[in-house]
């Protein structure tokens, strides 16, 4: 089953709409509660990333009998060094931002630990594509 959601950059109040919807569907399918939780955590993190950094993004969700595949495509600044961004604690955030408790460098690592397969592709100045799959 396919779904798409649009995400507006800067609209924090509505971040989480996609993960909420996906959660409801996974519950109806009877997917294990732990897998639902992992998926929702990863997707929410990804949604907030788009809201915080990109201009806009599109989320495509494909749920099948044995897996869920999610693709987030955004128009935004992109990530210059992906392998660096995947490291725990790596962050481009300024000290000012960190002081507030943001930019701890846990975004992508947190998604990694909550997904079975995570692929990140990015082009600086154009945008980022995050894809992940969780198996039931």
């Amino acid at each position, binding site marked *: 089953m396919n779904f798409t959601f649009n995400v507006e950059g800067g609209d924090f109040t509505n971040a989480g709409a996609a*993960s909420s919807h996906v959660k409801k569907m996974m519950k109806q399918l009877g997917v294990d509660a732990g897998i639902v939780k992992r998926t*929702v955590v990863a997707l929410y993190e990804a949604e907030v990333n788009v809201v915080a950094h990109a201009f806009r993004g599109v989320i495509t969700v494909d749920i099948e009998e044995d897996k869920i595949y999610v693709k987030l495509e955004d128009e935004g600044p992109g990530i210059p060094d992906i392998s660096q961004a995947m490291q725990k604690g790596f962050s481009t955030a300024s000290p000012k931002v960190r002081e507030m408790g943001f930019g701890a460098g846990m975004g992508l690592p947190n998604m990694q630990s909550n997904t079975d397969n995570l692929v990140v592709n990015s082009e600086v100045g154009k945008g980022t594509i995050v894809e992940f799959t969780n198996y039931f």
Partner: protein
Amino acid sequence: MEDFHHALKFKYELCIGCSHCTGICPTGAIHVKNGKPNLNPNRCIDCGKCYSVCPVSAIYIEQDDFNTIYNYAYPILLLPSIFSAQFQERISNRAILSSLYHLGFKQVFEVERSVPVIKEKMAEITKNEFTEKPIISTFCPAIVRLIQVKFPSLVGNLCLIKPPLDVTALYIKKSLIDQGVKEEDIGIFYVAPCAAKIAAVKSPVGEDESKVDGVINMNYLYNKVLRVIKQGEYKLIDNEQDFHTLCKESLLWALTGGEINLLKHGRNLAIDEIHNVSQFLDKLENEDLDAIDFLELRACDESCAGGILCAGNRFLVAERQRKRAQNHVHTHNDNDALVKEKQYLLEHIKVGEVQPRSMDKLDDNISVAMRKMKRSFEINTHLPQVDCRICGYQTCKELANAIVNNEAELQQCIFIQRILEHTDKMTTGEAVKITKSIWGEAKIDKDVIKSLKIE
């Protein structure tokens, strides 16, 4: 799936088929058929919302026969401390206690007496950094069941310790046996402020069986005691000791904030009323809420003061209870005989894991569930989204799910009926027949035209 005991029952002969219960249910457990409510036992969490909105009192709460207390040589009353707050100020605790003895109880124990012991365990669990946070209190049994059916991914957050009711009952049994009372002579009777507590006693979650031998509805006992007091039949006792053992914290336990007030550290939140709780848990499931350590969640507005079996107005009960906590002269915790049994009680305070039992699952087989979900989604996009309940279900979405589970048909939707009539695919007679199958014969009676003199 095992059967779950429910304390809420319908008096079908009184029911007028108004569907208010269907509308308010936080788990969508009730739908209307043949003019009467149908309860889905796997969804009902005994929160009692339906009981409160029923305009004709067609919902009742089962209780054990009061006279069974006389089957025991040593009947004990296990009383939530808010019981005394049901009465007007001019009725003294001494009179209340005297009446309870007059009714035949050998001793009265207030439920929250074990709070100091529970508090210790709570502090230990919240301090442990390996515990899944936020820790969710298991005090309110309706909340435990809500999480099992509606938020299964949060069962791992439940604080697996016994509520005061069970810990105090454990103490009562032990101390009486130690004093030489024969176990078979002891009958512990719990006074319930709500349906969820009764359900929890009759089929405990995470435990094999309850130490309680019988349940009395608080409202019933209130009336019985008030009658004894008004008729002045009782002998006034000298000693109010049974009402003096609670400390201030214990007296406040059952009110909103009662649990989080015991926690000295961390970020702790108290939320009452089941729809508020549902909304918050939905948010909690979706996103990582900033470092919340403990959640005190209660199904009733004003917590146990708002229990559906409480006789008094919930705001007045809460106010009287707070006043009692303020003015109460109590013995120091360390002198309480129960606190001296702390070691024994702490050894038995844990309960087993709570299992999820998702109500949303459309089928046990995931491919069938997938097919059903697709079909339900498709049907729902053509339903009006008015959630008018004329089909007998709470929402359009619930109707769509019932259709894919072969429990309902699309023609139950009044909008679909109109479309079918308009396109000559259904006669008015057929539409009326369907409406009658949902709402019963009486509501679609032609004679109403004569009675109302409609031209």
